[in-house]
């Protein structure tokens, strides 16, 4: 049932954004997050939204896909909206009932937080749409490499992510197999309340974990057999190189970043 799951949400096509170095995309996404948090005036979000729209067009990822990435967040967004609606009490009181009080400040605050979250999710989704998980892992390893000096296990972390990515489809398939095996033995996985349902997961999880440990053991053996001995003296088959378009991307983003902050501080409204 889950054989063809796409890992992450990579959208396979050729575009300028796709061809950027994963390090560039990671750094710029991080910069974008900072920018979103620095914006304190609602109308400036229009610039961020325009930026996202331009990047989306350049990346050739359909708008509908970017919007769909918001779907899993809908309850969180709603929750944030409602919470902020009643939390902030400033400005004119529009409506009052029991302990709830709706103010203009509250509406402003709720809209502001929702926009912020929307833009955050769309921005980070765009990165995962245009970068394969494995490229992300490589980029992360390279970016975190300087931290190795203070003992941060950058290589180990990246290796763990790679192995996790490799084994997700295998374990999904296996859990599917175990579920069917338990169903065929008369296991009831559907009925009952939530606690009963959780309990009925035990006969699936236990074999799955045992198998995962066995796999881990065998994989470790196979990796050692192929001379794996950590990061020391290791070369890479795929070397990341910054190209001209990466520098252009940095430049463009820096312009957006600075102009948004300038607008925020210079404009009175």
């Amino acid at each position, binding site marked *: 049932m889950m054989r063809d799951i796409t*890992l992450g949400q990579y959208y396979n096509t050729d575009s300028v954004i796709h061809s950027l170095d994963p390090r560039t995309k990671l750094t710029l996404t991080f910069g974008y997050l900072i920018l979103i948090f620095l914006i304190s005036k609602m109308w400036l979000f229009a610039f961020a939204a325009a930026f996202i729209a331009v990047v989306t067009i350049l990346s050739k990822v359909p708008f509908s896909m970017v919007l769909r990435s918001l779907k899993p967040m809908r309850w969180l967004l709603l929750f944030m909206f409602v919470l902020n609606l009643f939390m902030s009490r400033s400005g004119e009181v529009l409506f009052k009932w029991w302990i709830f009080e709706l103010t203009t400040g509250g509406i402003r605050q709720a809209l502001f937080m929702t926009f912020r979250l929307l833009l955050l999710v769309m921005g980070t989704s765009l990165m995962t749409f245009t970068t394969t*998980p*494995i490229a992300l892992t490589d980029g992360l390893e390279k970016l975190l490499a300087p931290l190795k000096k203070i003992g941060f296990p950058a290589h180990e972390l990246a290796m763990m992510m*790679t*192995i996790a*990515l*490799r084994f997700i*489809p*295998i374990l999904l*398939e296996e859990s599917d197999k175990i579920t069917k095996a338990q169903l065929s033995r008369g296991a009831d996985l559907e009925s009952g309340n939530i606690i009963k349902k959780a309990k009925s997961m035990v006969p699936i999880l236990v074999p799955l974990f045992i198998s995962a440990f066995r*796999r881990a053991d*065998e*994989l470790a*053996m*196979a*990796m*050692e*057999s*192929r*001379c*794996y*001995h950590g990061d020391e*003296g*290791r*070369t*890479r*088959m*795929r*070397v990341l190189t910054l190209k001209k378009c990466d520098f252009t991307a940095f430049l463009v983003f820096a312009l957006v970043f600075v102009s948004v902050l300038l607008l925020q501080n210079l404009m009175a409204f």
Partner: protein
Amino acid sequence: MAEIVIKNLTYVYSDESGVALEDISLTINSGEILAIVGHNGSGKSTLAKHMNALLLPSSGSVTVDGMDTLNDEYTLDIRQKVGIVFQNPDNQIVTTVVEEDVGFGPENMGVPTEEIIERVGEALKAVSMSDYARSAPHMLSGGQKQRVAIAGVLAMRPEVLILDEATAMLDPKGRQEVLNIVTKLNSELKMTVVMITQYMEEAVIADRVIVMHRGMIVKDGTPKEVFANGSEIEKYGLELPPMAQLRDELIENGVDIPKDALTIEELNEALCPLLQKS
């Protein structure tokens, strides 16, 4: 060329649950195909893991090209020279893209990038998997995955290739694919092959067969010698290869054919003249 010399090797499990290998002495000559057969728990996989320092002897010694596995300075050199392909193809492929996985060994050895790419291309070509270089391993068939695993070992340019029941989880087609590649590697690249297997018909293609039983080597000879006598092999919980069983039954029924025929071709040669006569 690599020669593996095993002297009085004994291996005791660390939890003292028993002796896995007892006083094994064996020399694996360069360029030969050696099959190690034996019942479950006979110690054949344990023996294989000693050949590239994955396990270290409790007593005795294993040397590869004169390098003792107990000396950890040699560990990486030994593992480069002696590659193992394991039973479960899923549990030995490390990354999510075929060509990157094949490059994993050379990366660990510190081979320069351009050479890794060259080696990966060669290795994938040797196992006829070049078309799948950019594929995801979980989309391949068992036989294909096992060929990728072989390519992963080949990219390290080893001198000895050990197949630790590498065909056990494959369908007949996948098994044949793997065997064809192994025999090709042996004849074209003069690669030494150690084949650990439960399938006697695979052992037939070897130059030499070793039978293991309860951690000891009980028989060592050419396939013809080892599979000459069914009752002796059965003592160790094994069966004769199918063609040898047929041969014995024919002889029992008074058909006059050579006692050492092992393959379809040999039986064919012996039987056709008889049919023409009658």
